[in-house]
């Protein structure tokens, strides 16, 4: 199970290469053939307008804006996971490492047509970062002066991951640790596994 202490999971992880390739092919194929598409700029415009309106409503209380964006994401995540499982028919991940690859190669690919890099595993192997080059939702965005350093513009993504992973019994903390909008080199989301919610698996499943 996700505590991934298995010896086959070395850091370079060659044993998993075919599996990763398979996941990538699955993500690419689903994106290409089974998804109705829309111009990304309309999505970016819509999401950005939501963020801007929240900033205005909460008069620069960016902690609350971050919380609201997270909540929107959470609401999306708990439902997107159903869509995801229906499309991919993927079985339960047996390691957290596999979870990370599914998130990056399949989920992000199918929904946002992005493939963030999985990096920065900790020693306990229960925490990794999803690394994006640029902030994926913030093309053309210029933060207002007060927001820099406080607002996590794309915090909705953390909420989505938190909600979706929770629905597959993985209780995780998900948060941004860096953002190119703030002048960082890359945009990183940290996913940290707290525990596996075994008890909440409904009877009759698994």
């Amino acid at each position, binding site marked *: 199970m996700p505590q991934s202490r298995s010896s086959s999971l070395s850091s370079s992880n060659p044993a998993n290469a075919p599996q990763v390739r398979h996941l990538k092919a699955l993500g690419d194929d689903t994106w290409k053939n089974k998804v109705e598409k829309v111009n990304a*700029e309309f999505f970016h*415009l819509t999401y950005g*307008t939501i*963020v801007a*309106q929240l900033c205005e*409503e909460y008069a620069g209380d960016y902690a609350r804006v971050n919380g609201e964006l997270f909540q929107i994401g959470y609401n999306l995540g708990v439902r997107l996971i159903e869509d995801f499982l229906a499309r991919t028919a993927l079985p339960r991940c047996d390691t957290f490492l596999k979870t990370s690859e599914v998130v990056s190669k399949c989920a992000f690919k199918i929904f946002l047509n992005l493939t963030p890099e999985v990096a920065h595993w900790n020693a306990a192997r229960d925490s990794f970062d999803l690394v994006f080059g640029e902030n994926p939702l913030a093309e*053309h965005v*210029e933060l*207002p002066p007060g927001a820099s350093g406080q607002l996590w513009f794309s915090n909705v993504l953390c909420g989505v991951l938190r909600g979706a992973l929770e629905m597959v019994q993985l209780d995780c903390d998900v948060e941004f640790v860096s953002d190119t909008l703030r002048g960082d080199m890359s945009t990183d989301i940290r996913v940290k596994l707290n525990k596996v919610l075994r008890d909440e698996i409904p009877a009759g499943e698994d």
Partner: protein
Amino acid sequence: MPEYFAIVGPGDRPLYESELGRGAWTPEQRELNPFVLHSSLDVIEDLQWQLLPENSDTVSNTGGGEFGGAAQSGAAQGGGGGFLRSHRAKTETDNCYLGRVDHFYGLAVSAYTTYSGLKLLMVHGSGIVDDANCRSFYQEVHELYVKTLMNPFYSAGGSANGSGSGTIGPAPITSRAFDSRVKAIARRHLR
């Protein structure tokens, strides 16, 4: 020669201005430039609503034959007539560039308008408007403006969150990135 460039929104609200091109304006001229531009706005307004001959008889519509003419344009803002289109326009989609619209003691004024009521204008110190370069310059700045719209923290107006009447147009463009990009475009197209 120097150029003075400005973007004016609906209701003649200035959104952006900068000095481009080579050389500097004399202090007197620098003060005069906004007035020169402003006086050209009326000329553009006239040009804008001038009906193009080939447009007058080709209102596309199926069913409801009485469309197009008086009944509709009466309801449109501005009243009687068509919406611009320079005689220099080559195609339907290249119709925003108006070319030289006005002159003032050796200065020339060129202009470009958009459907959303934005006016882009330039005072040319040389008194000469190079259409090819000018058109490219305006089109690229227009494209830059459309990208600016993608910035959610830039308001194109119409947001009526309780504050204000909600009828105000686009906000002034204060982004430094916008400014430096306009200057880069100018370096490429204006001499």
